[in-house]
């Protein structure tokens, strides 16, 4: 490649209308940095989003940007990836998009293990519709736009991802872009469905889990805050499945689920679970269609230059001939 790609290569001149201080900015730049680090040509990247503030992300990235319907990010992304597995497919969306209206797709995408990276912008509220409770807001919390405290319990996205079959499950923090960038890179490089839950304050509507709260500003010791967020890799936690042994796999899953319930005083970020031994959906297809990777759906010629179909059904028709 002649020109080295930088973060700038993935920027567009479109005016960004997210609120000042929004966690989305950190996620956007982490993603752009990750793509630059991996030197993936912009035209080989598809960024797919749903509806909401996070849905606008593709417009700010110089790559194929597909801003889809509310909750439908993953089906679009899967269609793109399976039709052309050479593409790097990044799905982005809010927690309401992925775990509320799109929850069915979230679960079923885990079962497929399609090689893509799904980043959830997790701020506990529906921002663009002015701050209603989202599926990750804890019961009893009353963020400032809510007329009453949240009546529903919260979904645990990490645990749900693990039991659904995602083979890379991580959590990042929108204000630690360096760490998040590395998680996104690992997610992209992981061959299978990678899920990254990104804790992301909404400065306009979520006045409870704020940047200050995550940063522990409320519990200073000797003038220094004690951050709530800490990195798993700085502990002895290891979420990686080392052998294709189902027992080990189950133990690592249980460990990840258990870890995912740690919340409040200490909130872990990093890789909760990774399993390289589950074949991706594309690999499963390639077992049946042996030239799937060299001639995937999007790359198959279907007609001669003058439009004659290339497929032959002569042999198949034999079963119907009378």
């Amino acid at each position: 490649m002649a020109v080295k790609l930088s973060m700038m290569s993935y920027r567009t001149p479109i005016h960004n209308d997210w609120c000042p201080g929004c966690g989305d900015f950190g996620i956007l730049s982490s993603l752009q940095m990750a793509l630059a680090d991996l030197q993936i040509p912009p035209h080989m990247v598809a960024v797919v989003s749903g509806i909401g503030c996070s849905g606008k992300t593709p417009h700010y990235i110089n790559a194929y940007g597909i801003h889809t319907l509310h909750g439908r990010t993953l089906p679009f992304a899967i269609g793109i990836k399976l039709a052309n597995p050479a593409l790097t497919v990044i799905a982005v969306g809010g927690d309401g998009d992925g775990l509320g209206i799109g929850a069915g797709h979230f679960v079923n995408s885990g079962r497929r293990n399609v090689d893509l990276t799904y980043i959830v912008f997790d701020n506990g509220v529906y921002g663009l519709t002015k701050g209603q409770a989202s599926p990750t807001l804890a019961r009893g919390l009353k963020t400032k736009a809510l007329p009453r405290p949240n009546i529903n319990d919260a979904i645990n996205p990490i645990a749900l991802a693990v039991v659904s079959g995602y083979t890379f499950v991580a959590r990042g923090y929108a204000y630690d872009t360096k760490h998040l960038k590395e998680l996104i890179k690992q997610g992209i490089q992981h061959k299978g469905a990678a899920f990254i839950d990104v804790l992301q304050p909404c400065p306009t509507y979520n006045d409870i889990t704020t940047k200050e709260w995550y940063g522990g500003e409320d519990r200073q010791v000797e003038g220094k805050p004690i951050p709530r967020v800490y990195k798993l890799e700085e502990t002895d936690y290891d979420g990686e499945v080392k052998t294709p042994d189902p027992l080990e796999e189950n133990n690592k899953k249980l460990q990840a689920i258990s870890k995912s319930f740690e919340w409040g005083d200490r909130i872990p970020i990093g890789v909760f679970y990774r399993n390289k031994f589950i074949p991706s959906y594309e690999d499963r297809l390639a077992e049946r269609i042996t030239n799937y990777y060299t001639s995937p759906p999007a790359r198959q010629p279907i007609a001669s230059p003058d439009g004659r179909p290339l497929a032959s059904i002569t042999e198949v028709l034999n079963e119907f001939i009378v």
Partner: protein
Amino acid sequence: MPSTKISWMIGGAQGTGVDSSANVFARAAAIYGLYAFGKREYYSNIKGEHSYFSVVISNVPVHSHMDEVHLLATFDSETIARHAWEVVPGGGIIYDSQAVNEKISNIPTLERVVYERIRSKLERVGLGETVGDILEAVRRDGVRLYPIPYMEMLKKVGEATGEKQLSALTRMTNTLAVGASITLLNIPIKHLEDALTQVFRAKAKVVKSNVAAAEIASKYVKSNFAEDFPYQIHPTQKKNRLFISGTSAVALGKIVAGCRFQTYYPITPAADESVYLEDHETFKLREEYPHLKELEVLDGYGSIVVVQSEDEIAAVNMVTGAALTGVRASTATSGPGFDLMVEGMGWAGMNEVPMVITIYQRGGPSTGLPTRHEQGELLFSIFGGHGEFPRIVIASGDIEEAFYDVAKAFNYAEKYQTPVVHLLDKALANSNMTVDIFNVDKIRIERGKLLTSWDSSLGQYKRFRFTDDGISPRTVIGTENGIFWNTGDEHDELGHITEEPSLRDRMMEKRMKKLEIADAEIPDSERVSLYGEPDAPYLVVSWGSTKGAIIDAIEYLQTEGLRFAFAQIKMLNPFPTRFVQNIFPSYRRVIAVEQNYTGQLATLIRARTGFQVDHLICKYNGRPFSFSELRDGLRDAVITGSPRIVKRSGG
């Protein structure tokens, strides 16, 4: 008694091999050289409920089923109770000689209302309520009875084949019924043996025992009944044809048309198509063009990826995602699934993505009649979804048309960069008929303004560039310099969000203009088919699978001196307005025929042309129009002049 058509029926509990027996019978007739049309009726049930298959055979092409039955093959009491009444005088019933004493009140799957109807019918003629009483009642009307001792014969089959298991032997009861039928109709038994070999080809042992069963039944019929069954047909000339179902024909159409990505969520009656495709996910390439470089890429064979999704919402959106990478992609569903797809279709319309939705309509609303027939989604296909966006809606009239129409659907989708709805229905999906062998040479693939590269010296690529015809040259995801953005929001030429009013106007006009271009470019010959006598006084207008029964009916009515032309509307959107406005007023009466309550085509004709049809013949009981119903209905319309005629036949 000469007849150009023979209607044969077989019935039995679901899961006892009714379908495969009918398939074997129709194939045997077709191998003999006859034309065949088979209609399948079944409950939303896996085992036990009554299902039946009606097969019409003829020495001339046949396009529909008929209400009258000439030969009824049964092996259970329920089929006799339900269908004996449909047998014409001179026709026959094949039945289990041991079943005659069974009381019809003991048939658990017979609805109370049906039981009462039969009981009172028998009471009126002074008979009791056994199967034997029913047989006696119809015998008095001139129906011939052919009792077969199935149990004894199965024992003989067991002796001949060494098969001792009773369960394996009972499965051959229906072959005994088919063997008896073929013999009564005087069709050489060797054709039945060929048909059995074709249908059970993978299982040599099954073929062998079924052939033995057919021969034993045939011998029994020959030695016990006079060879004077009045309904017989023999072919004039033998030509190889296909005997194929609608779902298989559409699946093959997709392979030929270049569809390489299909999604589905299981639903009756659409799922068969996708399952067939998955079973044939790899296929050979044509050998006629050994020099094409396109073929080298493919390494010997092509393939289609079939994905079973978690719901129809995922199905439609996966298709759109795939289509953005350049692949021809489609999904197949029925009405309830299409309900869930309309939001996704709107996104594809907004972003000008070529994709095809194949709809097999069934009885609605809601779950409705999930295994039965209806044409209820015409207006919904055209108008469903919020906001306004262009889409093309076509409907096929029969199995053969459906095969060729698939390629047209994809061509329209790519040329006009818009969703295409291909309307089919349960009757077409689950019918089998003899058709000429599909000719792939008749198909051309046209991909419209599809770009394989973009020269960046021409400036930044604009996916939604304003053009004279509203259609912008299209790159696909993965094209160097061809980056674009898509959004369900209103957007500018690059695909970025805008709410600017003048840009909104231009984009709306750009999109909608594509339909005007399609309307101007697509010739009437692709949008309307005219049958019958163009200068006849009466015109029948319809759409979809009513075609077969209409053609058979107007052909018959000609022998009574009633002359009809028939306009089959194949493209429902954009509507062939000029054609309709030009020719409809010249007919004395125009009669719409539709399988729905409200007359959706009649409504559409009025909306698009201002023309009001004179009569509506409609039906909504879930069973397709028979030849007989339209023969009588059309006659009624022009003689009595009734504006609305409702048809109600079918079991």
